[in-house]
């Protein structure tokens, strides 16, 4: 197992390096330039600016320079905010996005599990249909519409919770809720189908025949075997949610990092694009690793560490 983990860590580094390389060269093919009003700048000043940011070099040289800086943990300075380092920009927006993401994931997963179990145990009843309706609304009404409706009705019209801005826990409830609909829908659907399949298995009959109560058979025997797809989707979903959602943050005026990425691509802020990509890529790669480890814990028959021993 230890060897497997070390092996995977090495692969993670290689994968992140590939992501960095591909993104770096793709990014330099983007239309436009990092300079504002490029045509109005006198040539000598333009040259000086390009030189200061190392943009006068050919792209492969820039790439090597960037990798060199990265080795020392330096993500470079952002182009769009004079002199701000990319690291500080990420660290400024990340806490808010992280909090929203985690709240949405935790609430969404628990509620989704609950709904999924009800739907499977009461298959074909009105409760099953009700969870289907909730799930369908969760996936077919986009999060920005949910966010706007929540902000308008709960926030403005009824005045129960703050409709926007950032500060106390109360401010984070509505945006988390808006983000959690997709999680609820996803988890409840996967749990429902998988659970239906598990409930028909022979070992469930055995467990029942042993005299175990309904709740024990479901939580101990059935649920565990129904978790694999839910865990698979939760990995990347968590990363997406904790790195911020552009529209939800915009609607609730949350100072997260969701806006940062789209904005950096718009203005060709190369260092910021790379910084966010590395951050996101590393989290994705890590989440895949954790999911693979969880597979083995949920179902010990799954052995990814190769059956050589």
């Amino acid at each position, binding site marked *: 197992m230890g060897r497997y983990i070390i092996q995977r860590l090495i692969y993670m580094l290689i994968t992140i390096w590939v992501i960095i390389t591909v993104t770096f060269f*793709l990014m330099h093919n983007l*239309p436009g330039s990092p300079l504002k009003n490029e045509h109005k700048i006198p040539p000598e000043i333009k040259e000086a600016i390009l030189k200061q940011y190392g943009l006068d070099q050919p792209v492969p040289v820039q790439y090597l320079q960037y990798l060199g800086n990265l080795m020392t943990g330096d993500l470079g300075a952002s182009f769009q905010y004079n002199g701000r380092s990319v690291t500080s920009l990420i660290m400024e927006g990340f806490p808010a996005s992280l909090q929203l993401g985690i709240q949405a994931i935790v609430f969404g997963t628990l509620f989704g599990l609950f709904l999924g179990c009800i739907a499977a145990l009461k298959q074909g009843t009105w409760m099953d249909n009700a969870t289907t309706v909730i799930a369908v609304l969760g*996936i077919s009404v986009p999060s920005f519409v949910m966010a706007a409706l929540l902000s308008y009705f709960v926030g403005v019209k009824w005045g129960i919770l703050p409709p926007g801005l950032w500060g106390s826990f109360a401010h984070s409830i509505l945006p988390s809720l808006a983000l959690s609909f997709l999680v609820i829908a996803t988890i409840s659907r996967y749990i429902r189908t998988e659970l239906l*399949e598990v409930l028909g298995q022979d070992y469930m009959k055995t467990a029942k025949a042993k005299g175990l109560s309904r709740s024990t058979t479901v939580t101990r025997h059935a649920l565990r075997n129904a978790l694999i797809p839910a865990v698979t989707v939760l990995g990347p979903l968590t990363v997406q949610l904790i790195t911020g959602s552009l529209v939800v943050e915009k609607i609730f005026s949350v100072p997260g990092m969701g806006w940062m990425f789209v904005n950096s691509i718009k203005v060709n802020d190369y260092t910021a694009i790379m910084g966010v990509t590395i951050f996101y890529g590393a989290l994705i790669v890590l989440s895949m690793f954790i999911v693979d480890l969880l597979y083995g814990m949920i179902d010990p028959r799954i052995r990814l560490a190769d059956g050589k021993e």
Partner: protein
Amino acid sequence: MASSSTENLTPEMFEPVDSDVNEQEALRGTRVSFWQDVWFRFRSNKGALIGMLLILAIGVMAIVGPLMNSYSYSEQDYSATNQIFAGDHWLGTDKFGRDLWTRIWYGAGISLIIAFLAAAIDLIIGVPYGCISGYCGGKVDNWMQRIIEVLYGIPNLIMMILLLIWLDRGIFAIALAMSITGWVAMARIVRGQILKAKNQEYVLAARSLGASHGRLLLKHMFPNVLSAVIVTIMFTIPTAIFFEAFLGFIGLGIRPPQASLGVLINDGFEMLRLFPYQIFYPAAVLSLLMFSFNLVGDGLRDALDPKLRR
């Protein structure tokens, strides 16, 4: 009395019944193939049937709907902009005075095409990719999963903008954009399910009976993975419909004034505070469509489950 009756019996009185062992063993009744059985069970599921009829109805409306009144999807009427009820504009008009009834059905058609495209990409790329990765395991799985991580890690938006430079906007660009990363979630799900199925007893049994790899995967493991595949498609479809709207937003989707449900919802969202009806209609059609897809999906899942077969 009893003895006398037996004595009266002579061998001539008996006649061998013309019986054939094979005939005795023959199955009575018509044989039902797996797919006939699936269709029978699907048909007896009311929800699934309703769902299928609704999808058909929306499909028919997508063709017929735009022809039902005299307006075209692009015709602008500046004397009647943002009207909820305006004469023979049945569902009102948008900010350019375009007829919403026509645009919604036209958009539903485009979105249905995208839904089927997305489902096809999922099935053609995602499912085999996940099957091979999970089934082979080891090195193959390792490399295939690293490729998925790279695809996840490279920012989608950059790839889309670059596609925009090379391609004309339209259905082909949308299909290509979706086929880069649209199937990745499906591949992950299928791989997880195959990993789980791989070590189960029935697979071991089939393998020891000498089943080939292809037969193991297709006949034994795939039916057990199918329900997760169906659920995943149910998620791929709305994701693709909104992805198309996002592509339209950055200039890669369909060309305005053409519309899709995703584009209409985006447009309606801009007017949400002032004219909420503009988002309500397309959102309602999309929800109805998704609801029908889910009903059909649930019905298919139950119908395809070999354990429920009687």
